[in-house]
């Protein structure tokens, strides 16, 4: 197996990347240009690993190269090895609940383990003596065999909320919820419909949005909630969102008040396998924010999901109880740590 490590900031798109992403039906965040923008605007930029076996791509991975200490600086372009201590986080920014490594469809466990080992050896060669280890997160329970082994501790991660679409309409879905949740959602829908002060717009490939405003809004929301555990991402950038929301497979829902102020925004990544409710941000109530918008976004997402017949929808991590009340199941996710001595084994 041959591993090609690509710095998306400066290297061209690897041959076969787009075809692999399309064949595996991966989410838009795997688009090379989005990864390029994300890496340029990151403190911990991604290094992409492409594993080939006889010219065919067998696995792709995004390894965030994280340095210690975390500083308030973007990563220096062109930096090759880790002089200071650091680690590689096999992690996909802005798609929580999904792994940062994807294998070719139909490949067996042995092939996947071989690909994982090849990636680790390539990272050791590329990142040099400062590489302390590799972190895989999240890892599905059925894939643990690929990543675990002697000297590779497993830790728990926040569970991912996934909804299996078994309905043909929103009313069907509402009917499956608890009486209390169903009543509150219906009441909220009535209240919002009667509120002339909230302007709601949604749809794919939005070109009417100010990405800078969106980025500022999303970051303000994230700051208000406080830092996430093991957060290695840099705030989402305007350039990234600008490209993301213009894609035909990205649906963006916005709520504005009568003065045109943004009240809430939600991006949903459409996908034939599993739609993903991605960024959610809302104005604080103290700053003129409105109630019920979070749940309204779910009702609208379910309207799309049931109409388009998407089999699954993921809404990432956090707020487990609320998501369960909306019909989501919590899927266990793990984190596997591979310290330097066991890399490549």
């Amino acid at each position, binding site marked *: 197996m041959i591993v090609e490590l690509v710095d998306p900031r400066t290297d061209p798109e690897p041959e076969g990347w787009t075809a692999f992403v399309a064949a595996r039906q991966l989410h838009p965040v795997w688009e090379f240009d989005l990864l390029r*923008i994300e890496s340029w605007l990151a403190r911990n930029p991604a290094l992409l690993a492409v594993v080939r076996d006889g010219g065919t791509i067998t696995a792709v991975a995004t390894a965030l190269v994280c340095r210690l200490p975390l500083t308030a*600086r973007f990563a220096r372009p062109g930096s090759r090895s880790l002089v200071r201590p650091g680690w590689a986080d096999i992690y996909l920014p802005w798609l929580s609940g999904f792994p940062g490594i994807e294998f070719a469809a139909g490949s067996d466990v042995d092939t996947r383990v071989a690909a994982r080992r090849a990636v680790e050896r390539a990272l050791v060669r590329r990142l040099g003596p400062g590489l302390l280890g590799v972190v895989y997160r999240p890892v599905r329970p059925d894939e643990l065999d690929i990543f675990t082994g002697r000297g590779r501790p497993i830790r728990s991660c926040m569970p991912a909320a996934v909804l299996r679409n078994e309905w043909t309409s929103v009313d069907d879905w509402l009917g499956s919820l608890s009486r209390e949740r169903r009543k509150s959602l219906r009441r909220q829908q009535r209240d919002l419909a009667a509120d002339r002060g909230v302007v709601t717009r949604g749809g794919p490939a939005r070109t009417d949005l100010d990405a800078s405003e969106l980025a500022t809004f999303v970051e303000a929301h994230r700051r208000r909630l406080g830092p996430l555990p093991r957060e290695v991402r840099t705030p989402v950038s*305007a350039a990234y969102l600008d490209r993301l929301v213009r894609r035909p497979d990205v649906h963006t829902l916005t709520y504005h008040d009568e003065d045109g102020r943004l009240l809430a925004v939600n991006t949903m990544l459409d996908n034939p396998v599993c739609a993903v409710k991605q960024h959610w941000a809302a104005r604080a109530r103290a700053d003129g924010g409105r109630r019920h918008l979070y749940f309204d976004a779910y009702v609208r997402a379910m309207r799309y999901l049931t109409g388009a017949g998407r089999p699954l929808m993921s809404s990432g991590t956090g707020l487990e109880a609320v998501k369960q009340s909306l019909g989501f199941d919590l899927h266990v996710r793990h984190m596997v740590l591979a310290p330097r001595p066991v890399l490549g084994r």
Partner: protein
Amino acid sequence: MGTSLSTVLWQLTYRAVVRSAFATVPFYREHWALDGRTDPVLVPGRTGRHGGAVDAATVLARRADLVPLAGGEAVVDPLRGLGAVLRRVEPLRTGTLVAVFGADSAPVDLPRGVRGWAVRPDDDVDAVLAQARGPVVAVGPDKQLQLLPDRPHLRRVPLRELDELDRGPHGLLVHPVLGVLAGLADCGRWHVDRTALYLRETDAGLAGTVLRQRSPRLVDTLLGDERVRLSACPRHRGPVLTPGLAR
């Protein structure tokens, strides 16, 4: 602008600010990494539009992204640098009151012993001026300064915009984003405060960089008037702004 030591140091300071902005400020990182820039080129092969300079409207629209990753203010002060430039064109001795019309807050960079006053529309200006014990320097738009009563120790320093470069005999040149650009010195030329501001030529006219402001970072903001040129003062040798011909 020549190659004197002070000019070389001016350029080196500017380049350090550019590299720092590229490493820490989201807007410049995005703009120069994806589009490019010149002087210096930061990403090989990418030279960008207008050498990487941006217009004032874009800068104002992206204020939040001008704050470095370490945090800071996102407020653009339209009278940034007032104190530093003013003291080059007007003697500001201890006890002087600097009254600024049209400012949201009093200038913060005045010399020690000089008081600043941001004049509000409902302030009783006549009463304050009558009670002032020392000299008063009134800074603001011409129209407002003309309404002030004549007093022996009152000096008026009008704020000029870029299309008023040919007006005198004294004043401060202001820009809505970069703040106070220059002051009209005794030689009759608009002298740039090069300790705080760097100017470079681009194909869209001059672009200004505030050298000593942590947040928001203002780097290569186009002045917006392509006729304005940068040259050296034959008497004082510092950089001056002059009205030029339209391109």
